[in-house]
């Protein structure tokens, strides 16, 4: 301690001229570049590409056309649902009921338009004779039945969303609680309605919405007269068009409209929004209805791909996939920070992750463990990004 005063002047000099150091490769610039990358809207896309680049040499099947088509077809239904969840997270809420909405609407939609039904399987179900009978669903064979069925699905979903939203906005109940109750109740109701049976035999035009191609690609010799179905790869498919249009519409809604501004304002500071004349309650209710409607579109894509309405659709780790994908994209769970583009990349990364883990022949338990770890990583990344942003602005 006694030698300290003697050393002080030297320390003072060293500290007072940090800029006089000889020119060296500037580490600050590199750090700045890295920070730019991390804060970029496209960060998760870069991360996905890097992930593919690293794994491609080890997983030769990863980049085969068949696998790419597979990854894409897994993306679209998840994207539709995740886009709705993004809005809910943007107002600092959470919608746990999306899975149950998928189950409910897939069952109801399928019941309405099934072409035939098997009484042995379904005659015990409460919907037998009401929505569906031996000669198919209530709307089977009617003109415009497809559109009508989809409308009914969306309306049922929005009704559930209305219940969620009203409880959150008008009764000031916590969103977690409200949507948890919805999740439990409506998944159970979906199973009860069909007595746990699937409703199959859906009309071709419905199925096409879930897996039909609009433009497809064939890699191979031209001379073959008969091309096997599995060597044609869908390039632009119906689910892609549906999900991407939905995402674009929702992107415009969130970023470019007054409604979207209100949503983000509520997420950042609800009190300030209220005092500034934002119709807070109305917006909250609408957001939960939108979230459920997106889940119904997701249900359409899932059930059409399965060619059946299934009451257990949207169970298990489905919710983890949805919320995980949105959060990985960079949308904050604390509200006010959300972009549909982020969600798009988040969904891409999440689907890629599941796909590669499957290609590695991991069991589904192992896959879920890795997914959990990745979501934790995404949450940590969010904390890190927020800190970076604060340093920049400060």
């Amino acid at each position, binding site marked *: *301690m006694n030698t*300290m*005063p003697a050393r*002080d002047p030297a320390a*003072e000099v060293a*500290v*007072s001229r*940090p*800029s006089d150091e000889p020119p060296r490769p500037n580490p600050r610039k590199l750090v700045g570049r890295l920070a730019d990358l991390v804060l970029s809207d496209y960060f998760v896309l870069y991360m996905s590409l890097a992930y593919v680049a690293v794994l491609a040499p080890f997983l030769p099947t990863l980049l085969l056309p068949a696998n790419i088509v597979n990854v894409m077809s897994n993306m679209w239904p998840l994207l539709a649902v995740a886009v709705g969840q993004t809005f809910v997270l943007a107002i600092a809420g959470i919608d746990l009921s999306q899975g149950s909405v998928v189950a409910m609407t897939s069952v109801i939609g399928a019941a309405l338009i099934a072409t035939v039904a098997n009484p042995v399987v379904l005659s015990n179900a409460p919907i037998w004779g009401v929505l569906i009978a031996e000669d198919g669903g209530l709307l089977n064979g009617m003109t415009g039945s497809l559109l009508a069925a989809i409308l009914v699905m969306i309306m049922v979903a929005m009704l559930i969303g209305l219940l969620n939203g009203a409880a959150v906005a008008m009764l000031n109940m916590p969103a977690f609680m409200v949507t948890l109750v919805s999740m439990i109740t409506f998944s159970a109701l979906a199973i009860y309605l069909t007595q746990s049976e699937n409703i199959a035999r859906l009309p071709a035009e419905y199925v096409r919405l879930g897996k039909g191609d609009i433009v497809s690609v064939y890699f191979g010799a031209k001379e073959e007269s008969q091309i096997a179905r599995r060597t044609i790869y869908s390039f632009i498919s119906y689910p892609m068009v549906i999900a991407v249009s939905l995402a674009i519409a929702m992107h*415009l809604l969130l970023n*470019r*409209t*007054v*409604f979207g*501004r*209100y949503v*983000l*304002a509520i997420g*950042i*500071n609800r*009190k*300030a*929004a*209220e*005092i*500034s*004349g*934002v*119709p807070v309650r109305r917006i909250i209710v609408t957001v939960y209805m939108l979230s459920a409607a997106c889940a119904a579109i997701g249900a359409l894509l899932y059930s059409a791909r399965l060619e059946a309405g299934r009451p257990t659709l949207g169970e298990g780790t489905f919710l983890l996939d949805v919320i995980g994908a949105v959060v990985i994209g960079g949308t904050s769970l604390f509200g*006010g*920070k959300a972009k549909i583009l982020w969600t798009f990349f988040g969904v891409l990364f999440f689907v890629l992750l599941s796909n590669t883990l499957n290609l590695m022949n991991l069991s589904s338990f192992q896959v879920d463990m890795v997914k959990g770890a990745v979501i934790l990583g995404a949450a940590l990344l969010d904390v890190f990004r927020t800190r970076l942003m604060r340093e920049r*602005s*400060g």
Partner: protein
Amino acid sequence: MSDLLTLRHLGKSWFGVPAVSDLSLGVRQGSLLGLIGQNGAGKSTLMNMIGGIVAPSAGDMLWRDKPYRPQSAADASAAGIAFIHQELNLFTNLSVAENMYIDGFPRRMGLIDWRAINERARSILDRLSLDVDPATEVGHLSPGERQLVEIAKALHNEASLLIFDEPTTSLTPRETERLFETIATLRAEGRTIIYISHILGDVKRLADDIAVLRDGQLVDQGPEADFPIPRMIRSMIGRDLGGLFPQRTGQPGDTAVLKARGLTHPGVLKDVSITVRDGEIVGLFGLMGSGRSELARILFGLDPCDQGTVLLNDAELAAGARARIAAGMAFVTENRREEGLMMDATIADNLALVAISEFGRPPLFLIDRDRLLERTEAARQDMSIKAGDISRQPVKALSGGNQQKVVIGKWQLEHPRLFILDEPTRGVDVGAKYEIYTLVDRLAAGGGGILMISSELEELMGVADRIVVMNRGEIMGEFPRGDFDQERILAMSFREQAA
């Protein structure tokens, strides 16, 4: 008397920007040093260096003439330095005694010696004449009592230097008086005190010596007797203000903008009637709990009101804030961070929030971003908000004064007829206060009516055309500008003492 704490050429830079530079100062044993300076003058950095939270990058400190190099807050506390902060560092869920001894419970045979704690705590509380049971949960105490608990905590550590950082911000006048008495007691015991405050009158009243910081440097110091308030202000801002308040540029008109009649809500307001004319600044004065902010919230439609009518430009208003905004009301709340701004959003987003619905164009109702940017940038210039790129910079990166201008600016985009300003200069430094007064004057000169609530009477006397006094939810009376009399207004606001 010798110096208890000496600072020699102390300096601290953050990323090459000096927060404190070459600062030398002595604090005399047993004296009270008043430390003043605008926000960002370096007071906090200086205190953090003394408290061991931040290490100085230059210079040194002497404590009782020995080198003092605290590495942590615990070092400072062991040396005998205690801080009483603006935001109290107490655990509201623990008892008074637990809070006092949280940094080291006395133990007997490995167990906490509650009897000793309670006895000692009680004797310290007695010395501060704070009549609460040491077992009371701190959450049940008033802000003033909590402040005393914080002092009690410092006393049990036998601190010889107590540093008060803006201790009166959340206290009522009566609690403030009591705090000052306590400070006098502490001084009688021979303790040394550093008192930091924005309220210059208090500093003048308490201090033996005054030191002024500006831009990280000690710009002025001297005994209290040589330090009239104008000199303090001049030293703090580095120039003359030409008076604390701008000249009024407009004259109040004759048409009533706001007419509230017979507002009554049990337990909140009792038969309150108030009128604000065009171009008029009406000051609303009252102590905490007088119902002034409650009146503002009711006028703006945020809280319910049982009886009474609110007329704006002679039209009766529908319930709810949205209807009031549509009719031409604007409300700058007393709580900027929590109710006024979206702190994490950009300046442009904040400025646009109120008027945003005007920018959606059919058929798709997409926002016209160019027009929005144009309007918000115009508002920034109009309000002279000192900022860089308003569509990138978050509002939390602004100083308090500029943040407040953003709050006023977001309403200005709607050209409101009536502005309700609740404590518009709270947490804003002297220079920025003047700018806000100028802004308020300009809003009035533009023909708007202004209802300005403040707990600083000098401020209302400086800018208002008329002062209305409230007490316990009732209007006690009003004073036109010519009749402003500080003592009479205060007496009216205290009612029960006056009676």
